[in-house]
């Protein structure tokens, strides 16, 4: 078995569900709307 390097051991690693939700279309559609709203708020604050 290959031992993890010190860096690999120190870093946070995403679990199975985090990886699943990153490309889950339904969840990402919700994030799409949310991120856009967040960006629009940022644009409004910066203009």
């Amino acid at each position, binding site marked *: 078995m290959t031992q993890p390097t010190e860096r690999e051991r120190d870093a*946070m690693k995403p679990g199975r569900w985090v990886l699943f939700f*990153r490309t889950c279309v339904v969840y990402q559609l919700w994030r799409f709307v949310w991120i856009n709203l*967040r960006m629009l*708020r*940022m644009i409004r604050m*910066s203009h």
Partner: protein
Amino acid sequence: MSRVVILGAGISGHTAAQILSRKLGRKHEVVVVSPNRSWNWIPSNIWVGVGLMKPEEVTFELKPVYERMGITHEQARAIAIHPEGDASSPAPYVTIERTEPGKAGERENVTYDYLVNATGPKLNFAATPGLGPEQNSLSVCTYGHAAQTAEALKTAIDRMRAGEKLTFVVGTGHGLCTCEGAAFEYAFNLEFEIRNAGVREQAKIVFLTNEAELGDFGVDGLQLKRGGYVMPSRAFAESLFVERGVEWVTGAHVNRVDPGEVHYETLDGEMHALAFDFAMLLPPFTGVGLQAFDRAGTDITAELFAPNGFMRVDANYTAKPYEEWRADDWPKTYQCPRYANVFAVGIAFAPPHALSRPRKTKNGTAIAPAPPRTGMPSGIMGRVVALSIVDMIQNGAEKPSHTASMAQMGAACVASAGASFWKGSAASMTMFPVVPDYERFPGAGRDLVHTTGEIGSAGHWIKRILHHMFLYKAKGRPGWWLIPE
């Protein structure tokens, strides 16, 4: 009738030209001096660099767009500015040198009432021996460079398919580089494409950066709220690198690139060499080398420009240590202190200092990411300067009426980590403000409600939409002005 001359047609210069043209109409003249005949949506050069897009998809010809919008386009580079005119006339002017075929090298003077310096950077490959596409490494800074890089990647993938194991080095080619985010994007798009090609096992990918730690991005890193904790962006960046099997070297100043080998010094002062088969290393930026003269012909370049060639504006340039940097050191109006009708925006203005803590090795080598001033902040600067000039022309305003300090504006950034509708992802980040303000936001320097980041397919979809939306806006299509910078 007033004439506004804009030097450069990048994000800030082009934005300023569009807004000036729309607000001033045909009663006044807007002139854009740009050495290039095409406009380039630079953020998508990453995708050209991995072969997913052709240069034609990230560019368009400026002339027809400017003709339609009533903007005069001079295909030329600016050589010198004469803000007081000369002995024969007090009218300020810019000396330009044409770059269009048939007239290349011809010089002429263009007078102005208002001048916007939006020349962007000179890609200073010469700062590191052996750096650059004409020597031993690749780049994605221009669409031409990116297309060349895509060809090299194709060849590398073919070699790996034939069974070879190759080393890819992606990152910054000097200790004083900026745009670490672009290198980050390229590293992960490269990894994604190599994985898609089915040869990931054959590739060792190393991210070589001048950032003291991953996730710094030249903005001194971010603090993000996650799972009830406030965490540094370093933790998220390292997590992605480990997950995707990308190795990293931080705090690196590349001092030489030989064919197939990069030599660098790290913050501990140690010298290293790393053999590579493919290296995409970004160059540091300097100003484009504009000169300035007063009416008597005396060279006043050192007064108007910082030693790095960027133009001084209404910032506090007093040299001071990192601990004494203040958010209000940053400029608000981008007006030249000596000449009220001269402005500098985007990369062309001289920042008062970096955002990330500057560091030196025991050998005295500076390793300090330069502050990014591209993308959204760059567009906003172009907008506020254009609106201030409109007020000066139409209402006789004596001072710039619009401000946009990077210490009071936020930025939205989408960093691609692989381009595919179903499997792709990008890191979507917002930060407020861009310049940390530890007096307003003790501890984190930024508003923790408005400083966010996450990775997922939604980010990729947004990045793709932004690509089309900003090209639409830049082409001046109907309703372009409704799309914010």
